[in-house]
């Protein structure tokens, strides 16, 4: 399943949590979610696109920058691998918000977006 696979990939870089509710975590950490789109042919599903958003959070801008590079490297290095039963064809980075300061919680954040192509969910 894609969420478990993402958790395994991102946990190699930093503490990661699926964004499915409120979380309490120690800095630094990242949160992720996947918006899944199946590819239907007339014979059934032949693959999936996942729009994956990863939010990197820490209290130092340099640290967020370093983690950003590590997360991008870890994600894009997973082409043609099977992780937690999910066969990943390719990972493409499609967007980045840029590092910004989140006033309410006094943290720096960076939001990354990837397109992940998989054979199964």
């Amino acid at each position, binding site marked *: 399943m894609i969420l478990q696979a993402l958790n395994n990939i991102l946990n190699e870089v930093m503490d990661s949590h699926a964004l499915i509710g409120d979380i309490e975590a120690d800095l630094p950490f990242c949160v992720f979610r996947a918006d899944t789109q199946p*590819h*239907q*042919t*007339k*014979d059934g599903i*032949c*693959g999936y*696109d996942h729009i994956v958003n990863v939010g990197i959070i820490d209290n130092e801008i340099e640290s967020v920058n370093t983690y950003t590079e590590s997360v991008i490297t870890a994600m894009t290095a997973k082409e043609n691998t099977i992780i937690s039963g999910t066969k990943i064809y390719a990972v*493409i980075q*499609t967007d980045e918000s840029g590092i910004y300061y989140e006033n309410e919680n006094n943290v720096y954040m960076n939001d990354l977006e990837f*397109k992940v*192509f998989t054979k199964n969910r």
Partner: protein
Amino acid sequence: MSNEKVLGFNLRLKVATKYIAGTTNHNFNLEGKRRESIMKSDQGNKQWENTGRIVTFSANLYIMHGTEDNYMNVDDVRKACAANTTGYYEYGGDSADEPLVTGNCMFLKISETSDSENFATAAVDFEELEGSGGFGTQSGS
């Protein structure tokens, strides 16, 4: 049996006994072929007669590699288009007694799209050979 809507994925195209792998969509066009004439004896009313039919169709698909029984992959389709291969086709439902359009068709062309961040897709165009067409019903189940 009452009238029932037909789901799009239940209408399939089979060419030379094979499906095209990765097909997502078919566009099927059937038009009567007319010849018009007018003679003085028609008193100003144009006449027409049906002289057959024109059938063109296309399939949109994900480009698929690999081999699977009863399926043409993109390599097979490219070669068939390059050679304008002809073959028997059936278009319609897979279930027994479902209506079919049949005939012999020619592979005309394949147009492929491969961008930087999506699965590669293609469109394949076909044309029915004149005078080869018919209608039938699906015999298999």
